């Protein structure tokens, strides 16, 4: 039973885990509908992330952090 303690701001030694970052940048953030010239806002970003991650799951698991 362990808790991974994050490095505080300014003392970050380690990159954040990609999977945790993608949770946030693909499912979070402000979405402004309608005005973005490119239609990417209409695409289900969560679906994109799942497809991208699952299809490359082996690669990601083997990737050194």
């Amino acid at each position, binding site marked *: *039973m*362990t*808790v*991974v*303690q*994050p490095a505080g*701001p300014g003392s970050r030694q380690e*990159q*954040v*885990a*990609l*999977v*945790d*970052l*993608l*949770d*946030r*940048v*693909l*499912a*979070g*953030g*402000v*979405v*402004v*509908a*309608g*005005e*973005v*010239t*490119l*239609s*990417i*806002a209409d*695409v289900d*970003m*969560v679906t*994109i*992330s799942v*497809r*991208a*991650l*699952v*299809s*490359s*799951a*082996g*690669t*990601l*698991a083997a990737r050194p952090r």
Partner: protein
Amino acid sequence: MSETGGIWVYAVRRSVPSPRLTLVSGVAGAAIKTVQAAGLTAVISEVDLAEFGAEPLRRNLEDLDWLEAVARAHHSVVEAAATQGPLVPMRLATVYGDQSGVADMLAARRALIHAGIDRVTGRMEWGVKAFASDAPAQAGDEAAAELAGPASGVAYLNRRRAQLSASEKARGRAAYLAERLHAELSGAAEAAELHRPQDPQLSGSANTMLMNATYLVGDRHAAGFRAAVDQAVQRYPALRLQLTGPWPPYSFAFTDASQA
């Protein structure tokens, strides 16, 4: 600007006197600029539409190496900008045709964006993931041992049924504990969101992820929140917890849909 260029938007914040972000570069190594309108500043960079236009973007988002590079670049700009003041991050791959499109968006969404910034001012996001501590086999084994008798078909079936039911109970109990944990941590935070549990192949843990939660916590209460997580580690031995953060408030940004 050239007709092959688009504008990638990282985040929006209130206009401040010296908004300089010269130490970080953006996606594809581009220089960070700003667009100001309606008392708001959008943090932007120019992107090549041959790579970031709608169709290539769709394709590139499926490429994990590309996605990782872009996501990390986006994050490093958002994080650097967040050290200078409160902001709302934009979702990855928010691309406008030109700077005036960004300025129009700032003006049209002025009230919504100001309210969004108010909501996260002085607050950061902390992630807490909960996994089952270990495989829920023990209870099943004990039940099976009690039932171990003559090696008849009926005995085998009974034993098997007891094993399955015990592991189901263990799973149900762990899920119940995760719900209680989430309720407790929500009480120590100003807002909470649940992300989908991560796939075991991606989470780096063989154990089932029961909860992938994230909490909006006031900076002055961050130590208290972390203490609440530490206490939960002691109180919920059936769960293994991972704390991440602090993050810019990605999961607490508004969307147009939620306002409709």
